[in-house]
């Protein structure tokens, strides 16, 4: 991050409330890694995040330019958010033992890496974008949303990427990736080059 960006980020954070509104029993996870002035919007209030802060269902999380954020969720899933990412934790349901039941994230823009904790029972983990939805069982994968398109890359496990417009879906196995564009079928999956994976890994790697 350039020095000017650091100052702007720090300045913006200084204007934000320093404490989060009280949480109902909807805690979904917590911050375990942070770079830059990441914020969470809850109940209409934007608050600067810091290490250890909880995040909850319905929270909208923003990572500014130059920032990164890592969350450990209640089911053990790790979410790593790249610079310029906006994601809403629409649903994050776990049972009393912490086993995931139903997860739905809404990725407005940016890049997200999810190392999804395995579960022994049927459970849903979905990330939706404006143009399509990616659904997984247990896997290590990436999804990036840009205006008019979304792409998925899978390091392990498999992901099903479906088009919001046509409903058609492609299965993406490990080492493969695919894209979906607005109003169209998903592009056929293909093997991703190591450079393609390295690019998204470095953008989501939170020290």
């Amino acid at each position, binding site marked *: 991050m350039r020095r000017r960006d650091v100052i702007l980020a720090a300045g913006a954070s200084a204007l934000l409330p320093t404490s989060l509104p009280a949480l109902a029993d909807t805690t979904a996870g917590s911050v375990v890694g942070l770079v830059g002035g990441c914020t969470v919007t809850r109940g209409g209030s934007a608050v600067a995040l810091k290490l250890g802060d909880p995040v909850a269902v319905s929270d909208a999380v923003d990572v500014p330019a130059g920032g990164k954020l890592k969350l450990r969720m209640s089911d053990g899933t790790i979410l790593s958010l790249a610079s310029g990412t906006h994601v809403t934790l629409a649903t994050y349901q776990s049972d009393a033992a912490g086993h995931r039941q139903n997860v739905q994230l809404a990725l407005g823009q940016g890049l997200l890496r999810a190392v999804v904790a395995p579960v022994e029972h049927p459970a849903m983990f979905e990330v939706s974008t404006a143009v399509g939805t990616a659904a997984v069982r247990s896997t290590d994968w990436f999804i990036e949303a840009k205006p008019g398109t979304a792409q998925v890359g899978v390091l*392990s496990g*498999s992901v099903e990427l479906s*088009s919001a*417009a*046509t409903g*058609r879906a*492609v*299965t993406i*196995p*490990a*080492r*493969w990736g695919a*894209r*979906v*564009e607005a*109003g*169209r*079928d*998903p*592009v*056929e*999956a*293909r*093997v*991703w*080059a*190591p450079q393609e*994976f390295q690019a998204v890994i470095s953008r989501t790697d939170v020290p």
Partner: protein
Amino acid sequence: MLLGLTVALGCTAPAMAYDASGDRLFPATVLLPQVAPGDEFYVNAATLPQSGPAARQSNFTATYQKTITDNLGIEIEETWTAVGQSGAGTNYGWQNLDGELKYLALNNTDHEFLLALGLDRETGGTGATRVGAFGSGATTPRAYFAKGLGDLDIGYLRPLAVEGYGGMQFADAAPRPDQTQGGLVLEYSIPYLESKVHSFDLPDWLRNVTPITEFTFTTPAGRSYGEGATALFGPGVSYAGEGWELAVEALVPATRATGTGIGVTAQLHFALDFLFADSMLGKPLFSTR
């Protein structure tokens, strides 16, 4: 003349599979060798009427390809041939064992362009001369390319793609001739049309179809030892499932040395890197991924 089909198909018949560059997938070709290395297995059957004492030749080919690194792979291929004799029985036997080392030299994803280099080696004396296998082997350096037209502003022609290769086969010993080899493929990808150009409300089965036409040829270079030039067209379709493809093409010979009537070929291809993505069957032996 006896082995017009085998020679037209590069002696080891088809060597095919899908390749990808950017959002472009090139389906498994049937007559031409594939452009890039991959992890795949496929079987092919082809039959074509012949002139002379051999009334019909049929080939059954199995091919296994394995990536060593992300850009380097090997291929092993074996063909079993049946030659039906006019007024006589049928001769059966294996063609020579074939292998190829292939290196993907360039993958320009923005322009959907692949360039690869191959070195094919046919091991002489491993096949049966009664079905036309040569007693001597041959070595063939080749260059391959594939180009999708999706980066051009040509509207509904963007799903078009061309693939091709050229090579020079050097025989180990006479009386086998050296050969110039080559081929071209023209294809129109409906999956590409639906995902990159415009999503029409087509039936599900049609969304997975790619019409394809292939052309391959061989020409003796230098002394021919009685071998003629071969040329073969293969118009057909390829249907893509998840991890597999099925292609069927007509075989239309363009020279008498290739064949004397319309034949047919079918191929079933399995993408091992899709079906066994997490095992060594489906990924390079040495990879940074």
